[in-house]
Structures are given as structure tokens and as C-alpha cells.
């Protein structure tokens, strides 16, 4: 899945989206050349979803939002909870705005969940939450268990957290798996 992100706030929304395994484009430089050949309307035709931070103005923000509405692309309009852009929100509340365009407030604590929920609605293979809630029983040898104890103390993480962190590193760096995610229908 390809997501276009337009964001000039301090929160790195693009990187947050990348952690879900999704391809992110923030400019034409991110798109492979062949992806932009034969465009009839604009480059947004080639993306599956759009995320816009609407409280921090960028020159092309309203143009892109308008195009997203025309193309009826799944679009998430984010704004900080304490900084509502009233005029834009008023416009986005009109009945004629398609259901594909949603608006959500965010804080630093909630933004990841908000983005994941949106992406999950577009692509079910992206988990809506990255909170570990699947129980997994793993039998270890005594040697392994002693090593894990020592590692947890050294790294100041509990054993489960350490193992999850190790698995996540493997997942993020496994190019074959990342390619599999891209090709998996």
C-alpha cells in the first residue's frame, strides 16, 4: 500500500506510517519514475490513501485536500487537539464531503493509534494497534533463561519487552519479509 503524507508539523507522521510497513511518499522524489508515467490527473491517482496534517499550513495543502475529495481517496485529516483549524474543519463537516475523508484530533500519545486505525480501515493487513495482546508460550533451556535474565537486567527491560524488541528489529530489517508484505495482496 502507498500512502501520501503531507505534514509540516514537528511530529514525524511519515516515519510513524513507515513503521507499519507501508510505503510512504512525501514528494515526487519518493515515487519511482515509472509510477508517475502516464498520469492523467495527478500523482495522487497512484496512492492508496492520504494523510494530511491540516493545522500547520503548507502551500499545497488545500489543493491536495481538494484533489483528495475529488478523487475520493481515503484521506485522514489530522490536527492537534489544542489547535483546531476551524475554517477547514467547518468545510470538512459539510454533508457533501465524501465519507472517504475523515478528520481526527491527535496528541503525541494518541497519534500512532489514530494513524494505525485509519490504515487498518484501508488495508486490513496493517494492525490497528501495535499493543501486544497475543499470548505466546515459549519453553527455554536453563542456559537460555539465565542469559535472558542477564540481558533484561543489562538493558533495563523486562524479558518479554526485550524479546519483542529483538523480534521487531528482525522484522524491520528483513528485506525479504518487507518485500513479501508489499507483494501480499
Amino acid at each position, binding site marked *: 500500500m502507498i500512502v*501520501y503524507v*503531507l505534514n509540516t508539523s514537528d511530529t514525524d507522521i511519515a516515519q510513524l506510517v513507515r513503521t507499519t510497513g507501508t510505503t510512504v*511518499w512525501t*514528494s*515526487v522524489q519518493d515515487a519511482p519514475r515509472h509510477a*508517475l508515467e*502516464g*498520469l*492523467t*490527473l*495527478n*500523482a*495522487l*491517482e497512484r496512492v492508496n490513501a492520504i494523510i494530511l496534517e491540516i493545522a500547520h*499550513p503548507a*502551500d*499545497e*495543502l*488545500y*489543493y*491536495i*485536500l*481538494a*484533489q483528495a*475529495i*475529488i*478523487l475520493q481517496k481515503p484521506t485522514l485529516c489530522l490536527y492537534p487537539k489544542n489547535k483546531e*483549524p476551524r*475554517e*477547514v474543519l467547518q*468545510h470538512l463537516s*459539510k454533508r*457533501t464531503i465524501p465519507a472517504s475523508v475523515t478528520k481526527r484530533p491527535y496528541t503525541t500519545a494518541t497519534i500512532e493509534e489514530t494513524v494505525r486505525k485509519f490504515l487498518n480501515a484501508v488495508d486490513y493487513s496493517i494492525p490497528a494497534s501495535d499493543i501486544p495482546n497475543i499470548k505466546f508460550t515459549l519453553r527455554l533451556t536453563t542456559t537460555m533463561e539465565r542469559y535472558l535474565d542477564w540481558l533484561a537486567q543489562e538493558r533495563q527491560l523486562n524479558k518479554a519487552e526485550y524479546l519483542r524488541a529483538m523480534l521487531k528489529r528482525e522484522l524491520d530489517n528483513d528485506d525479504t519479509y518487507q518485500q513479501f508484505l508489499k507483494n501480499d495482496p
Partner: protein
Amino acid sequence: MSSALKRKRVRVVYLGGIPLSEPSTPQYINDMLSQFLELQLVADVEVRIIDNLAGADITWSMVGEAARDIAAHYDEFDGFVIMHGLDNVLYSANLVTFMFHRLTKPIVFTGMAHNESTTQTTDQVVYPIIGLQTNLLTAVQLATMNCRGVILAYGPHIVRAVRAVQHQGVIQPLDSIGEEEIARIQFGVQLLPHAPERLSDSVEFWPEFSETVRLVQFYPGFRLSESEAAQYSAIVAVGYEEQLVPTNLPLLETIPVVVLLSKPPIVPVPEGVIIMQGITLPALLTKTMVAIRRTTDPVKLARALRRNDHDELL
């Protein structure tokens, strides 16, 4: 909108460009354009409806009326959009170009670039109404940006009217000669570095133009009698390479003849014949239409045609 992005004002002048079922009243068109409310995100848009015609049916006087409307409201708006069918748009857009001397803001022509049936290219299907909405939105956006001149926005490549030529493609119906397009649509609208920027100078409007300039393409047996030619204020011809014009063309003494060649003439140029090169035919015709109303003196006319005020000469 945030104060960091001051609202711009754009005037949309409607001549046609949207295939509508009859009858279509001005109110209906106004309501339809207003429903493209995505436009209101990028600018405060005001609509003036002159008529609703296919490009092939738009007359010179309608184009003149659109230009006069723009001139009358020039200081009130940041930019202008003229909605016009693809047919004849090269002529209309070039006429508007030459009616303004030192244009300081953008005037963007746009409309539907596809016919009513869906267009299929490779694995894409283009829906005409979405294409129209996108073109209109792009035109309004361009009208707010730091550019000037008469611009054509009928697809993802944006070209200047004075350099525009018909292209054989369906997706990109217009092309540009002597330069790249001046803007591209990628995610946003990207002006290219050579796009002329806005100016703060005053603009001059030249409302008069002749509708009696005859455009001719010579062919074997071409004839033009003196009585026929008397109806015309000038002739613009795509000339012959070896002889410029047929010897039976009678009015070299009475009316100016402007000949467009692709390379310098190899024969002596008769008096009254003005040779032009490196300009598109629509630009030459419309430039002549405006210039002939300002002077009929062949020397002054030649000088006026050879001025390059709009970067129309290659």
C-alpha cells in the same frame, strides 16, 4: 483559513467547456460550479457566465467579452480562469494574450479535456467529470500562484498559450514548443523555474481587434479576387518556401500580407509582405488581429509583429 495562508480571490469566466444537456441556464451552470466546492478550499471563487458553447462555436466577440470582463475586474482578483472547450482554445487564448500589454497576473484557460465517453489508456480509465473538476481546481490554484500570462491547463502538463500546439495525445491534448511546460501537476502544482513571475506593474488593455483578418493556407488553384480581398484588413498566410505567395495574390499593395515561414525566405520579399518566423499560427493570427487595429502602416505593423512582448517568438 490560517492567517499564514491569506485567502486569494479568483474570478472564473465561463464560456463553455462542460458538455451539458440542454437547457442549461446560467443559474444551473453557476450552481454546478458552486457545487465543485473543493474550489472554495483553495480560493474565494466568483463566477461570471457569458455563454455555454462548445469550443468550436465560441466567437471572437465572446472571447473579447471575456477579456473585457477580466480587464474590468483586474485589480479586484489575484488571478482569472476562463472555462473554454478544447476546440479553438489556442486561438481564443492567444487573442486574450495580445489584448493585454504587460500582463502581470495569470489568466488560465481550462475545461474538459476528454469527451463524454470514458477514455481507457493501458490500465486506466479516466472519468470525464473528475477530469474537469481536477482541471478546474488546478486552474484556480494556478490563478493564485506566483506566475503571470495566459496559461492553458487541460491536463497534467501546463503550457503557455503563446507556445502551445495541439498534441496527438488524449491524456495530454496540448504541447509546448521551444520550452518545457511551465508547470506540472505532481502532488501539488509545481511551477517550473522558467515560469514568468507576477509583476506589480500596471497593465494595459487593448480592447480592439479586427475580426476581418483572413487566414489562408495556399494550395494549387488558390484564388482570391480583389473584391473578396477588400473585405479583409489583412491576410495571414502559411507561405510557400520558394516563392512566399502565389503570383495571383492581388492585394500586396492594398492590404498587408503576413506570411509565416519555417525558415528565412530565399527570394526577395515584395513590398507589403511581412515575413514572420518562429511563432505559432494562432499566435500570429491573433497578434495581427490586435496590431492591425492599432496601425495599418505596413512598416509600423511589421515592427509591432516583431516585438516579443509575450515571449511568443522562438
